[in-house]
């Protein structure tokens, strides 16, 4: 009973939050609604007994990813309303058909795979975090190391890409200097284009 109430409550909240994220024309509303939606999703993980996954969801998504988006949004003009252009209706119909097939596959998947055996069965004698550690560092050690290398590559890529021209502080410069900088930017980019 408690599980059902929690499931329906958080399902409704998550759906509302993500619908706001997708439908709003203000970038700031989208960001806040998505951060709330991420926290509500972690509630499902706690209901399902995946405690460690729920904690990681809160730390990584609402802590790191959302902070990164908030940081990135400082660079963009977020007060401007987002304009959506109408696309070709035939394109939308094709994409909708593909999505429908995908949905059917997802719903059919548990019926088709009813006779599967558990690879790494859940052991009730140890806690979730301990069991996750044991499986992750024995059976999934190589993917874990690869994920670590991938995160390192992503971090270096992020620093290199976003760190360009970080030495010039736009807030401390006069308007003329900024205009000059933009003019040199435009000429250099056009030179690259040629």
């Amino acid at each position, binding site marked *: *009973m408690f*599980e059902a109430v929690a*499931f329906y409550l958080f399902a409704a909240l*998550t*759906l509302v939050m*993500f619908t706001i*994220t*997708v439908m709003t024309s203000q*970038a700031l509303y989208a*960001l806040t609604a*998505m951060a709330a*939606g991420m926290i509500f*999703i972690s509630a*499902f*993980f706690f209901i*399902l*007994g*995946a405690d460690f*996954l729920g904690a*990681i969801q809160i730390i*990584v*998504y609402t802590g*790191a*990813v959302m902070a*990164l*988006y908030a*940081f*990135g*949004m400082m*660079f*963009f003009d977020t007060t401007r309303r*987002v*304009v*959506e252009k109408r696309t070709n209706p035939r394109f*939308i119909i094709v*994409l909708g058909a593909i999505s429908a097939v995908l*949905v059917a596959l*997802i*719903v059919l998947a*548990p019926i088709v795979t009813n006779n599967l055996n*558990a690879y*790494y*069965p*859940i052991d009730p004698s140890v806690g979730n975090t301990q069991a*996750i550690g044991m*499986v*992750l560092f024995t*059976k999934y050690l190589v*993917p874990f190391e690869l*994920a670590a290398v*991938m*995160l390192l590559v*992503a971090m270096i*890529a*992020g620093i290199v*890409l*976003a760190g*360009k*021209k970080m030495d010039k502080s736009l807030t401390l410069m006069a308007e003329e200097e900024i205009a000059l900088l933009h003019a040199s*930017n435009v000429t250099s980019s056009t030179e690259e284009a040629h």
Partner: protein
Amino acid sequence: MEITLTHYLVLSTILFSIGLIGVMRRKNLLMLFFATEILLNSVNIGMAAISHYRGDYTGQMFAFFIIAIAASEVAVGLGLLIVWYKRTGKIDLDLMTSMKG
């Protein structure tokens, strides 16, 4: 009133559809990134639910790797987006037609 695996899979599918709608209708690249995050998160719910109802840790493991991939995707994607915005002043998808094809 018991919550079964189907409940979670239907919820995961609905969230995935919301993300797909976002990917289809957004032209602003930042909003497109938000929609991709929704897609990844909806799949994570399905993974954790299957892990719970099948009594297997594999689903949770895959959810961890999906989270790691999402984090690195955001780092690289936002870096590229900032570079593009510094160059052009816009992050609209329709204006990224520099290739003559």
